[in-house]
């Protein structure tokens, strides 16, 4: 599948280039189908990420008790530990939840693991798209226009059914 890069605003007070007004990011929408309805969610593709990380608010919407998750620690480029968690052991984590879902991205369907981070915006894992979509997506099935050009450049969402 091919997608278009998405343009996001930049903070001009924290940018070395005076004429830069936006940043291009590898962001795609994925679609959740839940009982209440359907919604898409913007995710940032990071082919080097070990896991897929969702904002805890999305987990809440999917009926997942994020705050019952086991606390884990993730590390980013800052080197500072950033806490996350999964559901396998109940701790008083207020941050993250871990679960497996069937993810269908036609024509590939795979079982994939997600982490939910309630404080993702605080730790600033990503701006604009509150998700790191991990190595599987980056490696297997997602390309971006002009990077891997094809004739079909439609903006097709992936679908996650719960």
């Amino acid at each position: 599948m091919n997608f278009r890069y998405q343009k996001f605003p930049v903070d001009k007070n924290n940018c070395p280039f005076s004429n830069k007004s936006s940043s291009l990011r590898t962001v795609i929408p994925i679609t959740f189908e839940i009982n209440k309805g359907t919604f898409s969610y913007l995710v940032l593709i990071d082919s080097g990420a070990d896991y897929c990380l969702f904002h805890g608010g999305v987990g809440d919407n999917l009926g997942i008790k994020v705050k019952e998750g086991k606390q884990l620690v993730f590390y980013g480029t800052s080197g500072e530990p950033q806490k996350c968690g999964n559901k396998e052991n109940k701790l008083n984590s207020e941050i993250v939840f871990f679960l497996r879902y069937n993810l269908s991205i036609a024509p590939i369907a795979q079982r994939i693991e997600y982490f939910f981070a309630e404080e993702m915006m605080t730790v600033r894992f990503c701006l604009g798209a509150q998700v790191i979509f991990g190595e599987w997506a980056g490696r297997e099935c997602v390309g971006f226009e002009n990077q891997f050009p094809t004739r079909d450049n439609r903006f097709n969402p992936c679908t996650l059914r719960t």
Partner: protein
Amino acid sequence: MKIKTVDLSKTLKNYKNEWLALNPDSLKVVATGNKPKDVLKLAWEKGILSPVLTKAPANYGAYIL
């Protein structure tokens, strides 16, 4: 080479630290709020069948992964 993009920069630049629901066709903001549940509910009530959910960050500073 000009890269074709989906431009969210103008849509998002006026919003900070809140959840947004966008119209999937026009990518205009149709609902805002502090909780994704509330934002989605508002968007669905406005007749947007599959709104695009995202959260505007507190600032748009540069980042690396």
